[in-house]
C-alpha cells in the first residue's frame, strides 16, 4: 500500500517555541491514523501543516505523492503561489474543532460554495451531491436551516458533509468532538466511523480513546512536538512502551 499522507522530518517553531521537532509519519491509503497527546504537544499544528494552513520550517509533506506547499527544483524547495496551494487544498478535506460553518450561508449553501467556486461545477450537480451527503450524515431535512439554528453536533456533521462535497482524497479532523456536549459526540463519531469503513484515508486528532481503539489502524502519541510512540491500538493503548503515554492514558481513561 502506498502512503496517502507522507510526513518526513518536519520541524516548526512559533518564535522560540519548537512546536514540531523532526516529525515523520506515513499514513497508508484507506487507513485511519489517530493522533493522541496532551494539549500543546503539537498535534493540531501537525494537522494544519498537512494542508499548509501552517507552513513548515523544515521537512516535507506529501499528499497522494504530491509535495504540499512547495515545488521541488533540485535540492531547493520553492514556495508555491496562493492559487496553487488552494488547488492542492481542494483535494484535502478538513474538519475543525469549532465547525467553522459559513454563518451567512444556509446549510445547503455551505455545501455547494466550494464546489461552485473551486470546481466550477453546475449548481444542479453541486446541489444533487450536497443532498446526497446531507442524507448520509442524517440531516437531509435541514438543508434550508441556518448554521446558528443547529446544535453543535448537527453543525459538525454539516461541516463533515461540506468537506466531503469536494470529494477529497484524504480527510483531516482537528478535535472534531472537543467542543460538543457529551450527548452529541456519538452522532459525530458515528458519521466518522462509517466514513472510515467506506475506505477514506483519515488523520484524526482527538481525545476519544474509544473511537481510537475501535477505528484506528495506527495510533500516534505526541509529546512536546515529537512522536514518542506509534503502533496499532492494541499496542499503544494497552501496552504503552513510553511512560508519558501511560501517564496520559491514565488521565483520559
Amino acid at each position, binding site marked *: 500500500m502506498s502512503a496517502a499522507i507522507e510526513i518526513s522530518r518536519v520541524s516548526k517553531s512559533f518564535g522560540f517555541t519548537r512546536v514540531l521537532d523532526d516529525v515523520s509519519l506515513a499514513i497508508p491509503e484507506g487507513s485511519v491514523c489517530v493522533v493522541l497527546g496532551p494539549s500543546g504537544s503539537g498535534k493540531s499544528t501537525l494537522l494544519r501543516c498537512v494542508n499548509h494552513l501552517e507552513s513548515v520550517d523544515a521537512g516535507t509533506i506529501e499528499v497522494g505523492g504530491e509535495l504540499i506547499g512547495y515545488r521541488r527544483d533540485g535540492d531547493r524547495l520553492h514556495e508555491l503561489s496562493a492559487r496553487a496551494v*488552494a488547488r492542492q487544498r481542494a483535494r484535502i478535506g478538513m474538519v475543525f474543532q469549532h465547525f467553522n*460553518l459559513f454563518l*451567512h450561508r444556509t446549510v445547503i449553501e455551505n455545501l455547494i460554495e466550494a464546489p461552485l467556486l473551486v470546481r466550477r461545477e453546475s449548481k444542479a450537480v453541486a446541489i444533487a451531491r450536497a443532498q446526497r451527503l446531507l442524507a448520509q450524515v442524517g440531516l437531509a431535512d435541514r438543508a434550508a436551516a441556518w*448554521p*446558528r439554528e443547529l446544535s453543535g453536533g448537527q453543525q459538525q456533521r454539516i461541516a463533515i458533509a*461540506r468537506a466531503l462535497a469536494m470529494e477529497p482524497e484524504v480527510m483531516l479532523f482537528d478535535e472534531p468532538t472537543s467542543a460538543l456536549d457529551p450527548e452529541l459526540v456519538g452522532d459525530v463519531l458515528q458519521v466518522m466511523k462509517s466514513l472510515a469503513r467506506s475506505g477514506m484515508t483519515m488523520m484524526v486528532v482527538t481525545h476519544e480513546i474509544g473511537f481510537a481503539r475501535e477505528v484506528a489502524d495506527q495510533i500516534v502519541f505526541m509529546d512536546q512536538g515529537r512522536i514518542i510512540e506509534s503502533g496499532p491500538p492494541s499496542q499503544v493503548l494497552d501496552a504503552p512502551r513510553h511512560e508519558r503515554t501511560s501517564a496520559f492514558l491514565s488521565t483520559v481513561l
Partner: protein
Amino acid sequence: MVPEPAAAPLKVVRKRHYGRWCSALVALAVVALMIDSMVRNPNFEWEVVARNLTSDSILAGVGMTIELTFISVVFGFAGGIVLALMRLSANPVLVAVSWTYTWLFRAVPMLVQLFLWYNIAALYPRLALSIPGLGELWSAPTNSVISPFSAAVIALVMHQAAYAAEIVRAGILGVNAGQHDAAQALGLTPFQGFRRVVLPQAMRTILPPAGNEVIGQLKTTAVVSVIALQDLLYSAQIIYQRTYEVIPLLMVATIWYMAMTTLLSIGQFMIERHYGRGAAQQSAMSWQWLARGALPRSGARR
C-alpha cells in the same frame, strides 16, 4: 405542601406597568407643547419657509450636497477598504503607510484641510506629470485645476477614507479566524475567501457605524460653504443675506437635511436586513417591542 390533584391550569396575570403609562403621557405632553409653540410662534415665518422650500437655488444646493456626499462616501469607502487591507497585510511598509495616513487625516480638522486644499497653489504653483526620459507629458497651473468643487471633493474623500479604513478594519477583525481557515481549507483562494466569506460577514459589523458615518458626512459637507461652494447651507445663506429672513431659511436647510438623513436611515435599515442573513435574531423594531411591553395583554394572546 402536596399539590392538589388534577388542578385546573393556573392562569398567569401579567403585571401592569403603570409607570410606563405615566412617563409616556408626560413625554407626549412635552412634545405636544413644543410642537404647539413652533406652529403658533410667528417668528418661524412658516409661509417664508414654504415659499423657499422648493425654490430653484435651494434645490440646486440640495443637489450639490447629495453629489458631494455621494462622491465622498463612494470614493472614501473604496479608499477605506484599500487602507484597511494594507493595514492588515503582512507587508510592514504598507502597514506603516496605512497607519500614517489614518493618523494624519484624522489629526487635521476637516475645516483646515478644506482651506489647505483650496490654497494648495500657494505650496505647488504648477502641477505636472513627467516621466524620466520622456520629459513633461502634461502640466497646468494649480489654480486652474483646483476649484472650490475639486478642493471640497479632495478634502471630503481623504477625510472619509481615514475614518472608513478604521470601520472596515474593525469589521474584518470581527470575523472569526476560523471562517478564513475553513475557506482556505476548502480550496478557495485568499481573494475568494475574502470576497465570499469574510467580507459578507464583516459587513454586519461594518454597516451600523458606516451608516452613522454616511449621515455624518452628509452634514459635514456643510463646511464647504466656507469656500463659497453652493451646497444646501450656502444656498440658504445667499438668500437670507439678501432678505434677512435668517431663521426661516435655516429652517428650510434643516428640513432638507432631516429629509435626506431620514432616507439614508431607511436605506441603512434595509441594507442591514440584507446582510443580517443567518445572524441571531436582529433587534426587532423597537416601537413594536415597546408596545408589546407596555400594553396590558389580553388573555387570548400569548
